[in-house]
């Protein structure tokens, strides 16, 4: 028996052996992928086209065509609004977060006193701003009152002055509104950009110092070095970070709450699946548009 087995092993070439082991290593993931991802994904698609009645004997699934989708888009009162808000929020936040985290990564990469402390503070949101904590934080009454008492230590960073200056100097009103809203939501932005800063920082540090040296000898200022060296070199990471930010926004989105409520509170599984699929498709469309536009401008070294 053993010799047969050995014989069987020996006949395999080196590459075949590696392929076999590769498959064995991937196998656990593959099983999980089928059980906990692909099958649920397919059945979620099926649910979205059917009406589901759950009773003591189990579920009765009957095909009803696209009426779940029609219901979500035309009948349900909150779906359209929630979908647009969460997508608009995403579209507004993503550029802000990416630009902000690139800026901070550049700053944190410079040498200054207290850099280690600053770094550890800026990565703190990675562990704090997620899940329940973030949800509960927004409803804290004491915090709201205290902010009032303290004269708005954080909320009122004095954007009104800035707004007046910008409006008077002829900046478009939309731009002003966008920028001031960014300042007002500074905590939200900072707290969502921890991982992105990490990724950008790693990217900046992998740029070879010779490039900077050469540019310095040629007389480039730090400002020019940023636009001509740092930005092109980290441009692939901009795409990575945009995608990460979008994925990260799932967990915070109101859509998630709505889908869950429809599914688990109202027990309308069909409608809930339909909503989830519309949300998923909308995000895929946005992702592919963004990827298409950004990947054209990305600079790859090779």
């Amino acid at each position, binding site marked *: 028996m053993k010799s047969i087995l050995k014989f069987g092993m020996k006949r395999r070439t*080196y590459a075949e052996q*590696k392929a076999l082991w*590769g498959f064995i290593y*991937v196998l*656990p*993931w593959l099983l*999980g*992928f089928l*059980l*906990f*991802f*692909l099958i*649920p*994904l397919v*059945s*979620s698609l099926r*649910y979205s086209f059917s009406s589901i009645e759950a009773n003591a004997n189990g579920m009765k699934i009957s095909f009803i065509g696209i009426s779940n989708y029609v219901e979500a888009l035309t009948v349900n009162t909150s779906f359209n609004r929630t979908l647009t808000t969460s997508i608009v929020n995403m579209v507004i936040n993503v550029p802000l977060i990416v630009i902000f985290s690139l800026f*901070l990564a550049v*700053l944190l990469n410079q040498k*200054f006193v207290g850099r280690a402390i600053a770094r*550890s*503070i*800026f*990565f703190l949101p*990675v*562990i*704090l701003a*997620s*899940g329940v*904590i973030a*949800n*509960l934080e927004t409803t*804290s*009454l*004491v*915090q709201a009152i*205290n902010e009032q008492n*303290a004269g708005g230590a*954080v909320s009122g960073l004095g954007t009104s002055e800035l707004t007046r200056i910008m409006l008077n100097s002829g900046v478009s009103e939309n731009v002003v509104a966008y920028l001031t809203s960014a300042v007002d939501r*500074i*905590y939200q932005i900072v707290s969502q950009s921890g991982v992105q800063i*990490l*990724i950008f*920082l*790693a*990217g900046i540090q*992998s740029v070879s110092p010779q490039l900077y040296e050469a540019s310095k000898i040629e007389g480039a200022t730090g400002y020019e070095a940023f636009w001509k060296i740092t930005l092109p070199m980290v441009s692939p*990471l901009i795409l990575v970070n945009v995608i990460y930010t979008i*994925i990260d926004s*799932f*967990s915070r989105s109101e859509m*998630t709450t709505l*889908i*869950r409520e429809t599914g*688990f509170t109202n027990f309308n*599984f069909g409608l809930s699946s339909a909503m*989830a*699929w519309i949300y*998923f498709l909308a995000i*895929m469309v946005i992702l592919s548009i963004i990827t298409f536009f950004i990947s054209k401008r990305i600079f790859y070294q090779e």
Partner: protein
Amino acid sequence: MIIARLLSLESWKRWLWTVVRLVLMAGLSFVILYPILQKISTAIKDKSDLYSPIVIFIPEHYSLDNFKKAISIMDYWHTLFNTFTLSAMTTILTAVSCAFAGYAFARLKFKGSNLLFGGVILTILVPPTTILIPIYMNLKDFSLMGLIPLLTGKSVNLLDSYWPFILTSVTANSLKAGLYIFIFRQFFRGIPKEVEEAAYIDGAGVGKTFLRIMLPNAVPAIVTVLLFSFVWQWNDSFFTTTYLTSGKVMSTQLASLPHNLSIMLEGGVATNKDPFYMSMVQDTGILLAILPLIIIYLFVQRYFVESIERTGIVG
């Protein structure tokens, strides 16, 4: 000469930039730390300070009463132990299974492995809400594609136990596992092929090469995955509240803290139900929930910062 250099435009620019940077860093650090400071100051306040107009940050009467209340309502020590066990368990299992899968995707190519890696990317991109309901149903009547009913006669209900977490993390499909597989794959691709080939020439099989040569070289990637997986599992409310409906872990306890608190207060003096006070205890509860993470972070933050830089996600 020295004075001329001091007064030159260059040095002025440098000084100005230093000041601007300092202000920016200090300001943003304050923005990040502000909620935590706020919570700490609320938590150590006495109830009577809540309405005192002169108390904003530093309380007039210190008290640990809030902590006592929050600890007793949340069943804190028990919850802490549960959460720690759950997070540690899923973290280790996920890291192991993702390391295997990542290595296979990076180095042990077989027919269709690129297609399967596309599947990994898909798991990253699909929002978890899309598959939540079928997974829930699946776990409620878990049959393992009809195998379990064949053996025992009926399917098992895996909800409200740790099994969903164990199963998903053994099979590298737990929370954000696609990302970890991606990290491992990128890292293993960055290790020179010659290292591996040397091991093969010396007679090591695939398994031995992986365990003895590649894995010890992959410490930065392992640390990154361990850290992120632990933190995200600790904070996760999405899967935890779905799988564990009555289990005592931090995120479920936090979510139900306001409710439990109001029940407890109503049980005591009926007029005691003061929204400010409730909010105060709730803040203390949040502080207690993140406190272990902050303490751990103080020790490992060095790795946090260093690890990503060396994992080669960027490479």
